């Protein structure tokens, strides 16, 4: 899922100071999965914003509405009936959803309530770890199912670097595993260490954001 985390409250308060009627818009898909933008979080953020703004001397009304996904126009449409009553929307969907809302409702101020950060998996309850970097040149078939782009702090193709800590943790963050350590362990378990001996050539980054803003067209799916 795409994961996001709440923006610091003072940042939101600053943006909302000039408004009176706010809609907190949630999304029941990715951001709900990472407990940042689902219905529960809408219901937590709404009273919190009210109280925080009251402390700044501003009385605002806050409505909350969660749609299935903010990255689909059909669901974004469900917000339409509320928009005439508000002068600001705080969307706690991922950046895609926030932009969809902003595009559909260009006359109202739309603010992000979250910072979208990564493509991740919920490893355990309460722990999300980035797994994919959307590099557009997937090498998972050569690294035994472990992504060195997203999970190596230096995105090494020929890791590990000399920084692997004891117990196989990453030099940059002791809480995350050195993925190249893990790749080696898996190769060893399968008796395929020789696959790691070839010097891998530089990646072609052009199929990702590095090649320019991504645009995909499928003629077979066009009306």
């Amino acid at each position, binding site marked *: 899922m795409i994961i996001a985390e709440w923006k610091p409250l003072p940042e939101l308060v600053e943006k909302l100071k000039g408004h009176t009627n706010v809609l907190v818009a949630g999304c029941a898909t990715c951001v709900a999965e990472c407990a940042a933008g689902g219905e529960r979080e809408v219901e937590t953020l709404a009273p919190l914003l009210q109280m925080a703004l009251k402390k700044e001397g501003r009385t605002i009304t806050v409505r909350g509405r969660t749609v299935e996904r903010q990255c689909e126009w059909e669901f974004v449409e469900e917000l339409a009936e509320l928009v005439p009553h508000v002068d600001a929307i705080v969307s706690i969907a991922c950046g895609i959803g926030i932009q969809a809302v902003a595009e559909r409702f260009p006359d109202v101020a739309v603010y992000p309530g979250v910072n979208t950060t990564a493509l991740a998996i919920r490893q355990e309850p309460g722990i999300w770890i980035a797994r994919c970097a959307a590099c557009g040149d997937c090498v998972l078939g050569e690294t035994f199912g472990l992504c060195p782009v997203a999970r190596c*702090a*230096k*995105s*090494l*193709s*020929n*890791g*590990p*670097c*000399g*920084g*692997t*800590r*004891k*117990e*196989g943790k990453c*030099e*940059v*963050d002791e809480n995350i595993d*050195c993925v190249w*350590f893990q790749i*080696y*362990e898996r190769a060893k378990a399968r008796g395929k*260490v020789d696959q*790691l*001996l070839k*010097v*891998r*050539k*530089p*990646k072609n*980054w052009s199929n990702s954001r590095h090649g320019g803003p991504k645009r995909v067209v499928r003629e077979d799916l066009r009306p």
Partner: protein
Amino acid sequence: MMKAGTRLEKTLRAGQFALTVEVGPPRGPNPEDVRRKAQLLKGIADGYNVTDNQTAVVRMSSIAGARLLLEAGCEPIMQMTCRDRNRIALQSDLLGAWALGMRNCLCISGDHQKASASGKLKGDPGAKNVFDVDSMQLISIMKNMRDSGVLESGDPITQPAPFFIGAAWTPFAPPEEFRVFRLAKKIEAGADFIQTQAVFDMKRFATAVAAAQKMGLTEKTAILAGIIVPKSARMLEYMNANVPGVEVPESLIKRMAAAKDQRQEGYQITVELIQAARNIPGVKGVHLQAIESEEVLPEIIKSAGLLPRPQV
């Protein structure tokens, strides 16, 4: 057949025990800061490493530092990390460095920019990093620029740019058993010489080098043992706990702590480490680092019996 004809290369080819030292560029634009260090260290080493924004802290560039050293009579070993520049900038800088007289280059991945915020420094932990290519690929790039006169893209350059190519080795970082294979990879990619992460346990290091020797690697590349001059027991403890791949034996820390003059003891320990390294078959030299105190190096090198440097 000489690859780049540098003093380091010649020393190694002549079968002499090589000595390189590290020079940290200043956190400022003053060339005198580099010239002063060059004056101190002239003639005591076969190559002078100039770090590349080490620990991601902004310093005078390695190319500029290296050029200043060269002008002052010290043959530089330019260092290049993969953190700050993409393949276009790296190759461009290599062409420029060659034009300015650089002939030794050490390729490393580079510390993540998070490391720059430490101690009193705010650093740049918020900077974007590059890591377009990794150190292994950079080695290959340099090899192709030298031996085939082509860039990574396959496009030719007007003439080859021969460098004596260096790489790093951290034999004790996990997964330890893979490290010798990674060394093999770097040699295959084109590494002519290796400078290791600081070694304090020469016995353990000897086992690692023996494994490399068994694979025939010590014939294909020159391994220089990295040695950091310890200043205090606290410094040793810090390195043991925090610097990946560095292991300091408990006995050494105790020895330092018990010493009357820890600085002097540190010099003594360094000399002993150098001697021990000389006795390891397959080790062709040492790479000495005296972090932020290069001025102690001449004394230590003299005590180790490594002066004068051989004529090559």
